[in-house]
């Protein structure tokens, strides 16, 4: 019985080792070579596929290729490669023989790579019916690129990427087709070589001192951008539903470079050095300006005193005593030219059976703020081996990296005391950096205002991270059209944050030095089992994938702190030498969760004209409530290649296809254990009966036993076009995405142990249009100019917050002294996320008070006269616009002029608002009443010195900007063969963030200043004491041997 032959081996050894026998002599080999029509040289990496099937290979370095074990029969073989016109040839395979197929390809302008990684497999570009965009890594990896996120900037329509700030390796807010969630994560799923990445902060948070609330750096920093071959972004539900519960925010598939068959052994060396400096600085009052201002205010006070006024203006005479004689620019004193260096060595090679690629990377980036930076040491190995005459293919990807983060004591948000940037803004500029004896100057008796230069030199804060990303794959060809693939992946990240505040620092002088260590361990194991069936069906093509996936997450943390040291020499290396028994107790935690999935996908194509894809994924997550854990995520999409129809031939369209798709996606990115009522033994529950502390237990959250998936359904309509023999290509897409059962932390009826809990409430709608155009604009021999444009329009709207009696959600909490309980945004039905809600600023009256619009009908009390108030209340707030741009544009050009190449990238976001929280808090003369400096703009505004900083529309500015993101100029030349057996070399100069055109008065309108912990949920466009964005110049070389 035939089934025994398969069942028992599978049972015993699993699929990896089951080797079905097949009669010999029914297959043959296709072999040949691809050459460039102009140079007659071989072309490497050409994609060779058998039409109507899924078999394919890549050509070798010399253009040759071989496909063995092809069942006998007549085939059409297609060769395609980016930059060349695809070509087809007929081939008849006979048993045991090798048929030769030769291609001569001509160059053309094209931007679409032909084989696209689509999740649990690959697809030919023209067969894709979902919305999928690809980024060519070589084009996007220009200038100083710390992580893969930066390669997406302005390269994909519908992807809005906002780097948090200018901190090296800074995290980013990445929104694919807008944010679709309010409380749960809006980050896309990152999949690296088929294995999902655990997209969590990789270093423990800072701690030990009360003033920091830093944004975390990007989890992608562990991956060397030079190793990336391509990035595919799956945008619509038809494309992402195969990732089910994790696909709602889009999926970013990162494919790394690998060795080539019969490569003759290739070695590449890349290096660059970059110099970065802050692109813009805050215009703070200088020492001279501050001194003059205080003197002038004292004169006012004296005049009022002489006039016997009870309430005197200005500053009391005593203010003069706090003035020093220096003129310190605190900003200059903490900024520097940050040097970045990168060395990358890669070698690859292969035989027909075995291919490998290995790379080594050293990257060092100094931040423009002294004390911040990161270093990366990374090694990577990628190997494939074919066994059993190509029936079994084994693969291994292994990345090991060490990232050494160092941090300046910067803050994100913050209130009363703040961190480095707050002190830069407020520290009296008439005071010197150092005293006459060389120690840092500190204002005597002050602990809440600190010398910022002392802060960066005194405080040590670092976090080395070790990450291992690995996966092993076995692909077994069960028959000519059935393959099974097993993948085991791990993602392990261990990091240690070490912080020391020395005894000399005002922060820790009372404590006698504070040392802290925090460990974080992220562990993620992934198992995938895939079965792919791709029969040969004549004119039609079919591929069916079925699979099972299991992911286990286990995250742990530990921290300990100590203080009261006799010396600063131990730093954080000897916590046990602390003396004070007053440090917080050590802490530890563990979070564990599982995700289990079954999925299948069927692609059907007919005559290369009609394509249909159906997806079904069934996901179960332990993070959700029993009874609601499992959910199905279906999707269906179709495309029609109009240009293949006979009635369409002859027109300008060399390619035109119409795509339509619908699907459902999920989001479960909430912390584990939200469904249960948890009792925690935290300090908030401890109680000192009789003066001795008794450990307390308190309910830390209200469990929601009905918690279920947040789901989004998305409909997509797209056109792919190629005009004039694909000289101009691109796509146009329309989508609508409806997110329901939003995971949302809402107030619950009292009494409740905790006032809020996660519920599935409300819905959100995103709609948008995306356009991309790429083309060869001009060509004369070896001289070409090409260019591309992407444009996106995205609109989101909160449709409902569930119960109609539910109050809009306040968010975007305002930072700074005197701004407690002040919010800047609300989430309300009928309005987009990121909607500013503020009193409308009218002007400043003669008394130097700010005035705001009000309505006597709703304004409480009697403070509203003729629609004007000086004392705005919540009832006076209005919608002031949202942080979302009306549309975004990205424009890139490439120029080749013989051996010279150049490229540039412009991007712009138009419309939308940004809240200048920095100006609200620091552009006020009232800061001088506390001996604090302020922004120079306050000197000329009419506000009185007694006017407090009041949040209003005054500080909500236009966000529109255009940025020259990058310009690169390169020169390629051949290395003479007698020298180091070199082949080619390229040198280049690159500049990042060279021009920023905007009316925004803050540092940069593209900003993300607050996170979910302190700032509220779904906050957008809030700018508070941001780490300045650098302008970077890079010089680099690339050698190929």
């Amino acid at each position, binding site marked *: 019985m035939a089934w025994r032959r398969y069942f028992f081996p*599978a049972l015993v050894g699993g699929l990896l080792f089951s080797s079905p026998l097949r009669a010999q002599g029914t297959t043959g080999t296709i072999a040949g070579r691809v050459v460039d029509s102009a140079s007659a040289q071989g072309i490497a990496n050409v994609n060779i596929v058998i039409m109507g099937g899924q078999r394919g290979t890549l050509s070798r370095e010399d253009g040759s290729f071989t496909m063995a074990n092809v*069942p006998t*029969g*007549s085939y059409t073989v297609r060769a395609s490669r980016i930059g060349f016109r695809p070509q087809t040839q007929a081939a008849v395979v006979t048993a045991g023989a090798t048929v030769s197929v030769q291609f001569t390809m001509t160059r053309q302008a094209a931007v679409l790579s032909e084989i696209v990684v689509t999740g649990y497999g690959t697809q030919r570009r023209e067969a894709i019916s979902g919305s999928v965009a690809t980024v060519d890594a070589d084009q996007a990896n220009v200038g100083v690129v710390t992580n893969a996120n930066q390669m997406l900037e302005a390269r994909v329509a519908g992807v809005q990427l906002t780097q948090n700030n200018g901190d090296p390796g800074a995290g980013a807010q990445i929104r694919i087709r807008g944010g679709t969630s309010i409380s749960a994560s809006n980050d896309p799923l990152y999949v690296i070589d088929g294995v999902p990445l655990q997209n969590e902060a990789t270093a423990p948070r800072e701690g030990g001192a*009360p003033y920091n609330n830093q944004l975390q750096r990007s989890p992608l920093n562990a991956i060397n951008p030079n190793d990336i071959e391509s990035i595919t972004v799956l945008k619509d539900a038809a494309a992402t539903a195969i990732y089910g519960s994790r696909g709602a925010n889009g999926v970013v598939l990162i494919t790394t470079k690998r060795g080539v068959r019969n490569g003759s052994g290739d070695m590449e060396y890349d290096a660059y050095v970059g110099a970065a400096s802050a692109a813009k600085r805050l215009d703070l009052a200088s020492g001279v300006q501050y001194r003059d201002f205080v003197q002038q205010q004292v004169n006012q006070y004296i005049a009022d005193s002489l006039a016997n006024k009870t*309430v005197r203006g200005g500053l*009391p005479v*005593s203010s003069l*005593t*706090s003035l020093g004689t220096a003129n310190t620019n605190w900003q200059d004193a903490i900024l520097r030219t940050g040097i970045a260096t990168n060395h990358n060595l890669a070698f690859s090679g292969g035989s027909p059976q075995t291919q490998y690629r290995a790379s080594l990377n050293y990257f060092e980036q100094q931040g423009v703020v002294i004390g911040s930076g990161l270093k990366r040491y990374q090694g990577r190995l990628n190997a494939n081996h074919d066994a059993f005459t190509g029936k079994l293919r084994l693969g291994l990807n292994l990345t090991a990296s060490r990232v050494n983060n160092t941090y300046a004591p910067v803050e994100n948000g913050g209130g009363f005391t703040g961190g480095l940037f707050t002190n830069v803004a407020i520290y009296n500029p008439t005071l010197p950096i150092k005293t006459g004896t060389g120690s840092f100057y500190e204002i005597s008796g002050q602990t*809440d205002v600190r010398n910022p230069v002392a802060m960066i030199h005194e405080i040590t804060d670092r976090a080395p991270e070790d990450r291992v990303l690995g996966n092993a794959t076995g692909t077994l060809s*069960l028959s000519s059209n059935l393959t099974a693939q097993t993948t085991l992946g791990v993602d392990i990240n261990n990091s240690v944050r070490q912080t020391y505040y020395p005894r000399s620092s005002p922060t*820790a002088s*009372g404590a006698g030095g504070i040392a802290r260590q925090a460990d974080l361990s992220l562990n993620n194991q992934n198992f995938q089992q895939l079965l792919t*069936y791709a*029969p040969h*069906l004549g004119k039609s093509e079919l591929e069916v994938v079925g699979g099972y996936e*299991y992911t286990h997450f286990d995250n742990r943390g530990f921290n300990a702190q100590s203080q009261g040291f006799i010396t600063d020499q131990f730093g954080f290396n000897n916590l046990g030498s602390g003396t004070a028994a007053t440090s917080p107790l050590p802490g530890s935690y563990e979070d*564990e969760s*599982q995700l*289990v999935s*079954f999925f299948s996908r069927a692609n059907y194509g007919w005559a290369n004209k009609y394509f249909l894809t159906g997806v079904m994924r069934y996901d179960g*997550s*332990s*993070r959700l409530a029993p009874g609601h854990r499992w959910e199905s995520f279906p999707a269906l999409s179709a495309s029609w290649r109009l240009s293949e129809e006979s009635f369409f031939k002859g027109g300008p369209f060399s390619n035109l296809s119409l795509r339509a798709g619908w699907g459902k996606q999920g989001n479960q990115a909430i912390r*584990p*254990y939200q469904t249960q009522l948890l009792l925690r*033994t935290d300090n908030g*529950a401890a*109680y*000192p*009966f009789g003066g001795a502390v008794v450990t*307390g*237990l*308190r309910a*830390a959250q209200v469990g929601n036993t009905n918690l279920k998936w947040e789901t989004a359904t998305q409909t997509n309509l797209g056109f792919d076009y190629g005009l004039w023999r694909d000289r101009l290509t691109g796509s146009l897409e329309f989508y609508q995405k409806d997110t329901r059962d939003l995971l949302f932390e*809402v*107030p*619950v*009826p*009292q*009494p409740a142990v*905790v006032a809020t809990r996660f519920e599935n409430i409300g819905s959100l709608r995103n709609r948008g249009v995306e356009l991309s155009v790429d083309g060869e604009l001009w060509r004369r021999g070896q001289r070409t100019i090409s260019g591309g444009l992407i444009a996106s329009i995205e609109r989101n709207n909160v449709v409902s917050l569930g119960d109609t009696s*539910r*109050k809009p959600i306040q968010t975007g909490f305002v930072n700074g*002294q005197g*701004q*407690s*309980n002040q919010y800047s945004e609300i989430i309300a039905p009928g309005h987009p996320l990121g909607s500013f809600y503020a009193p409308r600023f009218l002007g400043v009256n003669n008394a130097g008070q700010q005035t705001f619009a009000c309505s006597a009908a709703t304004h*409480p*009390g*009697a*403070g509203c006269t003729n629609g004007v108030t000086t004392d705005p209340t*919540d009832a006076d707030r209005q919608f002031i616009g949202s942080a979302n741009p009306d549309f975004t544009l990205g424009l890139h050009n490439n120029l080749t002029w013989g051996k010279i190449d150049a490229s540039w990238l412009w991007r712009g976001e138009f419309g939308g608002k940004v809240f200048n929280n920095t100006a609200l808090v620091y552009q*006020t003369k*009232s800061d001088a*009443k*506390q001996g604090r400096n302020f922004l120079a703009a306050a000197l000329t505004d009419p506000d009185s010195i007694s006017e*407090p*900083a009041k949040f209003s529309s005054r500080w909500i500015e236009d966000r529109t900007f255009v940025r020259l993101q990058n310009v690169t100029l390169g020169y390629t030349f051949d290395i003479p063969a007698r020298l180091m057996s070199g082949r080619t070399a390229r040198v280049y100069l690159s500049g990042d963030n060279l021009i920023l055109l905007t009316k925004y008065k803050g540092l940069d309108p593209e900003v993300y200043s607050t996170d979910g912990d302190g700032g509220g949920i779904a906050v957008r466009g809030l700018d508070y004491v941001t780490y300045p964005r650098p302008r970077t110049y890079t010089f680099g070389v690339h050698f190929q041997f």
Partner: protein
Amino acid sequence: MSKFSWKAALRFGLRALSLVPVFFVGETCTNLTEVPHDALTPTTAFHTDQEILAGVAGVYAQMRRAEDNGHYATVQELSTDVLVVPTRGSDWYDNGQWLDIHKQTWSPNSSGALGFLTGSWNDLFSGVAKANLMIDVVSKTGAANKDSVVAEVRTLRAWYTYMLQDLFGGVPLVTTTELKSVARSTRPEVFAFLEKELTEAQANLPVKWPSASYGRVTKGVANAILASMYINAGVFNKACGPAACSAINPSAYNSCSGVAVTGGKDACQAAIDAANAVINSSGTGGATYQLNSNWFKNFTIDNKSSPENIFVVVHSNSPQAIGGDFPMRTLHYNQLSTGDGGPWNGWATTAEVYNQFPASDDRQKMWLQGQGYSFETGLAVNDRNGNPLNFTISIPDLNKANESNGVRFNKFPPQASPPKGSAQPNDYTWFRLAEMYLIRAEAENELGQTAAALADLNLIHQKHQPTAIAAGTKQAIRDAIYTERLLEFAGEGKRRTDMIRFGTFLSWTENSANGICGATPAASCPRAAYRVVFPISVNALGSNPLLVQNNGY
């Protein structure tokens, strides 16, 4: 190319079957049970006495939220003349919330309501819910001390409910752990509930705990809360909430006399009985409570040893940061250095209150006026410009105060060089024996027992001032008690309740520019009668569709 055939399909099916083992392995990996490793759940907790004590500690710990910056105890003072937080430059502006509460301009969505009233509503109800959870789980266990633990937690639940009705009038009464929307009970219903709960609970409470359990509730605590309820029965036992508060007289004394409580007893008599139960309480070591010969020792960092304190929030300067931060809120930046930055230089009292403290009364020393000193060195300190720090009695303009304006509150003086920054070990006093005497005096006066009333009043008064208060009319003794309560309890969370009972809450004034009915009086002076209860903030209102807003808001 081969054609599609059923035979091929069958072959595929058979091959697919070979995958069954793999999927079978998969099924064992579909167990999605979630087990927290670093927290307990109600089913995994409370198996031992220690776990139960930890749960009880959690219910007590919630009281720290009730006396936190801007919550119950401070709103009680901030809405009166005792406490003012002027805007000092941009510092302490905070969206106007401090002055919103102080100047009684609050509305359901004003900044003070959104911040402080929402916080008070949630924090006090969280105490109720935590108590409900403990009562539920403990009454299901076989713990030997089950009855006393339940009585203890019921008393705490009653105290949280007392504070809620004090702020908001009638509130939802829930005694189960289920999370659901419940409509508000009337204020007399809440009153009756509290009476029943406290009376039943005190039977199972000890007279006194051993010193290691100091701070846990006793019979004295239950009786002290009852005494406070009864003396306020003219307010607390009157319909007020969604129904108009017309039974409460906003501009005259609201007597307990004539208000019938359980058993038909007159509330004033009930107040005397409850106060007596505390005053006359005794155990093996003699009287349970005694007035402290040194009044200041009721509040100092070692006030755990004061025999006068009946009910306190126990604080500690331990690393867990479970101390009080009163000194931080009020002292000048340079008066104390801590590991967490200096004090915050915010709170002050009005000139009107400070001037009511005669120099002859030692209690005046609870205020810091004139030159400020360091709590570490004892030396005079300077302001931030380097000139002598001098706290002024008057605050010329509440909107434009400078850093030295206003007399500071130092009833709970800080530990010098505190080991844990802002966390001070002074226990915060909810009830002291002195108040039982003053409640008894007030109730006796209402019942016409003026001589007894005067004796109780002078017992307190003459501890601080040499001359006794002379006999007078009922009204004169009332007034004297009102003043004595200010001198005695300023800063202990009593002022708003007292002012409402005495009918002064809506008419007090402040002679500062931008002060309430002060130098530049607003048209709405005195304030509208409905302000004797706070509004339910829109945040709280939105979480429960059955809640009806207080009348007038």
